[in-house]
Structure formats: structure tokens, C-alpha cells
């Protein structure tokens, strides 16, 4: 069995008294898309922030392709090949679409000062970026300011920029939030297209159609703990998960609630 791309080992994250991530253990296997579901405030985004280095880990360890990256500096984790998108779209609004993607070019992010000597419009860099924009259907808007993009295109730009960093693991945080049926369907197609370029994908989502069509395996989280794990069908039909999502019926809370 080849080594997993990502191993999260009993990771803990606390904000004051609240334990946002409560000793979560999971892994992303070679070329696998792992779905993460769970109600609001379950700790899903906190987990991604821990893996990508935005939050410091309070306990446990994270390994990426066998190497320990627990609490490694943000830019070091980025350079190792972990890229991500954000729930509230954090693109560079005052830069053009093409510049957004070219900014992620690993040749320059790794040695920023040396990039002063290079031409900003080097043929190779431009072609590489344009290929990605074509791949995500944004080539027509290359010179437009990212701030003016409609919602769906803004999401796709964020993914194109993440891919431009030549990652091996892509973390997606509710990419379909606020999208309608057609936009979600196109997003699923985009993710499938990206798969051959990546060794692993982590997808946080509330839209269950997307989870079913993209995730090979799914993990359900609630109150920072892993509640269920398995295929999409198994997890989405698990009574515990349905209850967490639909909420507790007033009268049937007689049984002692494990989450206390």
C-alpha cells in the first residue's frame, strides 16, 4: 500500500475553552478525493486551516507525503505543495485575472527578490498561466480586474491560482457556497478535470450532490470530532449524521447524548 499523501494524527485545536478540533485522525490516500461534511461550527474549516498552516496545531501531528509539517511556517507548507481555496473567496481583486494566476508561479514565490531580474511577461510564464486559464475557461477574461469577476468565475480563478502553485494536494473549502444548480454542476466538472494534476483533494462541502459525485471517501465531523467515515452513501445515510444535520427532535433526546 503506497504511503498516504496526507496524514492527520490526533490533531487538536483550542480557542480559549472551546475545542474546535478534538483529536481528529484521518488520511488522504494516493489520488483520492476525501469529502468532509458536518453542520455549521463542526470544525471543518478549522481543520483545513491547521493543515494549510493558517492555524497553529495545539496537539497531535500532521504529515504530508511522509514528512512532518506540524506548525511549519505558512510559506514553507505552501512551497511543499499544499494549495487551498477559501470559503469567502480571497482573490487579489486589484490585479488582473492573468496576474492572479502568475503571482502563484512557484519559480518566483520561492525566490521573490531574484524575480526582480526576470521579465514580468516572460513567454514561458505567460503561456503556463494562459494554459491554466484556458483549462478553467477564464482565458477570455485574462486582462480583466479580478475584482470585477462574477461569482462563478471568481471561484474558478481561485482554483486556477491554487493549481498555478503546482500543488500535489488541493484543499477546497465550500467551493459551491452561493452557487446555483448550473454553476455547481460546472464546478464538479472542473474538479474532475483537475484530478489528474493532483495527488489528492480534500473537499469541504454542504452540497451533498457534489459530495456524492466527487468524494471517493467521506468523513463526517461534529463538535470537532470524527462522527462517521466511509463511502459517500454510507456516511450520508448514517442516522447519526442525519440527526446532526437535521437537529435533535425535542422529545427523543432522552438517550444520554454522547457529545454531552
Amino acid at each position, binding site marked *: 500500500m503506497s504511503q498516504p499523501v496526507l496524514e492527520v494524527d490526533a490533531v487538536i485545536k483550542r*480557542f*480559549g475553552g472551546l475545542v474546535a478540533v478534538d483529536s481528529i485522525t484521518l488520511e488522504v490516500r494516493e489520488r483520492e478525493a476525501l469529502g468532509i461534511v458536518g453542520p455549521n461550527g463542526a470544525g471543518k474549516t478549522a481543520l483545513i*486551516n491547521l493543515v494549510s498552516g*493558517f*492555524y*497553529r496545531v495545539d496537539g497531535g501531528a500532521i504529515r504530508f507525503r511522509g514528512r512532518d509539517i506540524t506548525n511549519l511556517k505558512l510559506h514553507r507548507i505552501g512551497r511543499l505543495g499544499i494549495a487551498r481555496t477559501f470559503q469567502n473567496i480571497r482573490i487579489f481583486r486589484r490585479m488582473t485575472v492573468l496576474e492572479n494566476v502568475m503571482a502563484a508561479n512557484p519559480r518566483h514565490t520561492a525566490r521573490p527578490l531574484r524575480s526582480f531580474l526576470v521579465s514580468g511577461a516572460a513567454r514561458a510564464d505567460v503561456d503556463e498561466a494562459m494554459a491554466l486559464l484556458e483549462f478553467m475557461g477564464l482565458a477570455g477574461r485574462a486582462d480583466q480586474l479580478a475584482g470585477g469577476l462574477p461569482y462563478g468565475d471568481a471561484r474558478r480563478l481561485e482554483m486556477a491560482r491554487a493549481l498555478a502553485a503546482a500543488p500535489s494536494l488541493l484543499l477546497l473549502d465550500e467551493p459551491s457556497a452561493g452557487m446555483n444548480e448550473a454553476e455547481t454542476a460546472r464546478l464538479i466538472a472542473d474538479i474532475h478535470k483537475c484530478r489528474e494534476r493532483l495527488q489528492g483533494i480534500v473537499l469541504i462541502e454542504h452540497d451533498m450532490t457534489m459530495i456524492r459525485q466527487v468524494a471517493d471517501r467521506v468523513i463526517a465531523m461534529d463538535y470537532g470530532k470524527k462522527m462517521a467515515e466511509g463511502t459517500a452513501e454510507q456516511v450520508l445515510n448514517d442516522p447519526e449524521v442525519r440527526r446532526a444535520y437535521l437537529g435533535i427532535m425535542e422529545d427523543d433526546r432522552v438517550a444520554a447524548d454522547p457529545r454531552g
Partner: protein
Amino acid sequence: MLAEQLINGLVLGAMYALIAIGYSLVFGVLDKLTFAHSEIFMVGGYVGVATAALGMPVWWAIPFAIVIAGILGLIVEYVSFRKFNTPDGHITAALSSFAVGIVMIDLVQKVWGTDPVDLDIPRSIYTAGITAWGIRLAWIKLAILGTTLAIMVGLQLMIMKSRIGRNIRAVAESGTASALLGIDVKRVTQQTFFIASALAAVAGLMLALRGGFADSNVGLGFALKALAIMAIGGMGDVRGAMLGGLAIGVLEALAFQFDLGKFSEVLVWGLMIAVLLVRPTGLFGRATARELRA
């Protein structure tokens, strides 16, 4: 005499505190810096000069200073801060208030000239005093100290007990939550500027009274030091500004006493940089428990 120097230190510290409290209020509520504060402090001195020139007892200058400075504060709020509420607007707002400050200095100099102007109040005010336990206590210094401490206590009561004070603390914490609770954030911001400016003007008046003259160029030096004191005490923390101001005043007096002289200047800045690097929110400021910014 050490004791006398300590009194001088406290008097000087009281003035630092009043300005620093003004900065803390504005910064606490608006999260912005105002560079016009120093000139409103300077104007306070000239209110004293004008009151004395009108032949009125000099204590009348306090209410005059409060009203005039309050209005100046409202003007600064409107011109320099109302429009710049974007996150990176605080630099532009600070510079705009700096420009308003330039105008204030120039207007004062048009009326009273560029050189310091004496307060024509009987010299006896400065000589009257008592000697207790062998220490020479001039009435004027005790009066200044008393007035300032009274203002500080009154302000603390107002902040903690009154509706205006509650609203100011609410807006300082969250403008959105305050609006949902029916608080008019714009009105509270104006009240904050009025109070902060009034405090600065009273401090300026006290300085003029102590020295017997008003000086149009006194603003920047004093204000920068008060800014450092606010940072040391804790951004936006009124208590921190009070204690910080008094402490620095005394420290400088001591430095002067042991003729470290000039280096007392560097003292404040060195302390500020040290405190800001170790604990960015200052000694008393609440360490805003912001997680590693996600």
C-alpha cells in the same frame, strides 16, 4: 529638592495623562489616530491667554477651553475621519488630521504671532504658596494637580456609570452590535471627539498656566510623547493612559533631578518601542485574542 521635583513630575504627568486619555478615547472607539490632537492641546493655552486678556478670572478659561476644543474636535471628526472608514483609511485620516493641525497653528499665529505669548495674570499667582515640611508648594501647581485629578476621576465615573460612557464603550467594542442595540454610532463618535478634544485643551491650558505663557509650537512635541504614553499604557485603555502619563511625568522629573537631562526624552520612546515589541497591546490593553490571523 527631590520632593519638589516629584511634584513637578506629577504636574507634568497630569498633562501627559490628559492628552494620552484623549488619544485613547479616539483610538479606542475609532481605531484611528488623530494628528490634530496636538494642535487642539496648543489652542487650550491660547484660550487661557484670551480669557486673561478679557480680564476674566483665569478659571473661566476651563469651560471656554472645553467648548472651543469640543467644536474643533467635531470639525476634525467631520473633515478627517467621517469619510475614511475603510480598513486602510486610517493612514489617510491621520494625514488629513495632520493637515487640519497645520491650519490651526497658522490661524493661532495670525492672531497672536509666532512667538510665545504671556498670560497677563498677576505674578502673585506663581509666587503664592505654602511651605510644608520644608517643601515649597506653589498654589498654582496644587491647583493644576487638583483640577486634573478631578477631571480624571470625573471622566472615569462618566465612562463607567453614565449612558454616554456605556455607549462609548459599546461602540469601541463593536459598531455593528451597538447599531443593533439602537446606538447611533455616528453620534457616539462625535461625542468621543468632543470629550477627547476638551481634555486636550484643558491640558494645554494647564501647561500655559504653569509656565505663564502659551506657545504655538508646543503641540507636536507634547503630543508625540502622549502618543507614546498611550501606546505604553495600552491602546484605547483610559486607565492605562492615566497611569502611564503620571508615571512618565515623574520619571522625567527624576531624570531631570539626576541631570540625565536630554536622555529623559529618549526614555519615553525607548520604553514605547520596547513595550510595543513585547506586548503590542500595551501594558493594560486587552490582548485582542486574535488567533493567528486566518
